[in-house]
């Protein structure tokens, strides 16, 4: 048992590194801007308007940020549901990344909410409006964040030697693992359903009843991609050996998911009779950017040899991540046209800095956690 407890090890090393300091400065800048936002209202720092009531704080921080947090979801699904033990070393770092992804998406909601002091109404049954897609998303995300904390708790308990509680938790952990797979399936698809109701305001290139399917697919794809991306980055930056055999398999899964996405996307456009919108329709350039990134990213993975090469994996996972990001951005912002115009939206510098600050906080915390807590898999000779 104790031998297993040392399977994960803190990486160690200095906390005050240059990346950590840069991130800290960005977090402090964001904090100053937020003081302005809470003192004078959303308009004081953002370019939000009644035409574009949702800007990058929703589209990027929440909708894209939570997709970044899908690493824990897909790795738990592979490892514990499909029983692929070989992914085990990657579960814990993935769960940690998800914890920060979701935790900070939740924090970003409080930045964006115009009447944030009432946010707890979402949790009170007598305020609940069960037809609201957003209520489902909100409750699901809140519960999932708690589930992630429980899923990550063994790392804490190990670090501080609370063996008794750790063993007890391990006995019921399967309940949380099951929830940890169910909840993201629900809310990631619902993030797509949320935009169905805007109807004609979303360009026909994106408006579809298939939105929940596409959002679930991009969540899974981005989950795989972020694991591969982080793994390649960690092997380069922390000088750890690359987990090549596992990455090969993940690369194949990315290829399959991305191909299904592209195929369904085209079928959907054809069936809805909107395929012509690709050529000269509103915002069609963004559709092409999304498609080129997606197809380019998956094409790189077609030759089997590429799936073991760090450079090809890095490039491919970056492109697929970008494709997922762009798809979600297109649905929530770029493809959206307000009903009674004219309205324009481009995020203000302060708005962008808040988003940057939130992501910087995520990176800074991740760096501290992997150095101080047993998150990363211990490097065994057979890996090297």
């Amino acid at each position, binding site marked *: 048992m104790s031998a297993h407890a040392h399977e994960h090890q803190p990486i160690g090393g200095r906390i005050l590194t240059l990346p950590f300091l840069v991130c800290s400065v960005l977090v402090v800048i964001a904090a100053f801007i937020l003081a302005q936002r*809470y003192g004078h209202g959303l308009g004081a720092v*953002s370019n939000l308007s009644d035409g574009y009531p949702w800007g990058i704080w929703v589209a990027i921080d929440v909708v894209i940020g939570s997709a970044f947090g899908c690493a824990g979801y897909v790795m738990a699904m592979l490892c514990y549901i499909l029983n692929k033990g070989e992914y085990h070393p990657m579960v814990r770092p993935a769960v940690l990344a998800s914890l920060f992804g979701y935790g900070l998406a939740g924090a970003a909601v409080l930045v964006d909410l115009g009447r944030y002091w009432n946010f707890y109404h979402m949790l009170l049954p007598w*305020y609940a409006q069960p037809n609201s897609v957003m209520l489902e998303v909100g409750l699901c995300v809140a519960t999932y964040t708690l589930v992630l904390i429980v899923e990550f708790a063994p790392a804490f308990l190990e670090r501080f030697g609370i063996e008794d509680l750790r063993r007890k938790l391990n006995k019921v952990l*399967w309940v949380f693992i099951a929830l940890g797979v169910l909840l993201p399936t629900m809310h990631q*698809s619902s993030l797509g359903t949320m935009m169905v109701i*805007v109807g004609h305001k979303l360009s026909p290139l994106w408006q579809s009843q298939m939105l*929940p399917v596409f959002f679930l697919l991009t969540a899974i794809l981005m989950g795989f991609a972020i694991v591969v991306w982080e793994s390649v980055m960690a092997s380069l930056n922390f000088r750890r050996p690359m987990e090549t055999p596992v990455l090969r398999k993940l690369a194949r899964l990315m290829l399959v998911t991305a191909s299904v996405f592209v195929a369904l996307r085209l079928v959907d456009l054809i069936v809805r009779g909107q395929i012509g919108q690709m050529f000269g329709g509103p915002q069609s350039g963004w559709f092409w950017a999304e498609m080129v990134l997606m197809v380019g990213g998956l094409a790189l993975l077609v030759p089997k040899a590429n799936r073991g090469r760090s450079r090809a994996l890095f490039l491919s996972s970056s492109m697929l991540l970008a494709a997922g990001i762009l798809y979600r951005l297109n649905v929530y912002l770029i493809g959206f046209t307000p009903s009674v115009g004219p309205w324009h939206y481009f995020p203000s510098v302060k708005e962008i800095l808040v988003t940057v600050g939130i992501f910087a906080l995520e990176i800074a915390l991740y760096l501290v956690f992997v150095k101080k807590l047993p998150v990363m898999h211990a490097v065994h000779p057979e890996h090297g």
Partner: protein
Amino acid sequence: MSKTKSTVSRRGFLRNAVKGTAAATAAACTTVVASPPEANALQRPPKPMPADAVGLLYDSTLCIGCKACVTACKDINNMPPDVGPQQQSWNGGPDNPTWDSPVELSAKTLNVIKAYVHGTGATKDSAENGFAFIKRQCLHCADPSCVSVCPVSAMTKDAKTGIVNHNPDACIGCRYCVLSCPFGVPKYDYNNAFGEIKKCQLCKQRLAKDELPGCADVCPTGATLFGRSEDLLKEAKRRTALKPGNYTHYPRGDIAGKVGGARSGHEKLVEAAYQTHIYGEKELGGTQCLAVSAVPFDKLNMPTKVPDNGYPTLSEGIQHTLYAGMVGPAVVFGGLAYLAHRNTKNHTDE
């Protein structure tokens, strides 16, 4: 030995399960995609209008653009003046505006008269070389998107009058109502640290005292007429059937002459040809407030792509199909929990 066997059979089971799920997903996708936009299997039935639904009928041909309704609305609902950058007085500061000059609905303006001008602007109610007015306020949909999306029941539809109400004490300020409204009606105050969502609530406080909504009360020509939505739709159909040169009676205040007391209407020659389109008759499955005009509504900056099937029928339909009685999620959870329980046994750690 037996352990290996069980592992193998479980693998087989899992493989089949995955294949089955994939096939089911594919089948579901095909159904969703293949169904035509109308009469969609996923759509829930539209919500009917309450029997005693009340609303407004705005007749652009009667409107003289005096904006008495805008002023009355501001007074009654304690709304601040809205002064655009082009409309500042020569000696007034931003805190001391001389006049109220809203050009669009906003968190400061629940009701606005907008002008359409074309070419020489000589002829009233003419799309060519003419001008026309349009009144914007909440249409009080039969099946409102804003009510459907609100996570905390801050937007509600009165079961009797059908008025769409907003409760700022419940509201979390997510602005999903602002995003979802096909007519661009609810507005949020971005320049206030404690901003609220604002929209017309048909002066429900006055209706409770048997008084007319402010805009219908002060309208001198009957361009804004209050009444039961059923009666208003009949009146709108009567008007759109009129021909130029007809001489007809236009009522004022309450079409039934009850709320706010009986008022004299006026007789008038129909000068411009009405469009047959009654705005709000079919939009989003029908709205309680209607508009008729001689100039096409797209020219008056009204959203004309709004379908007859309300958007909530589809988005709620999708959710209700997936989450009917939470049976689907419960079954999936059962399966996941079973697998997680079995598989974590093999992993001694975690």
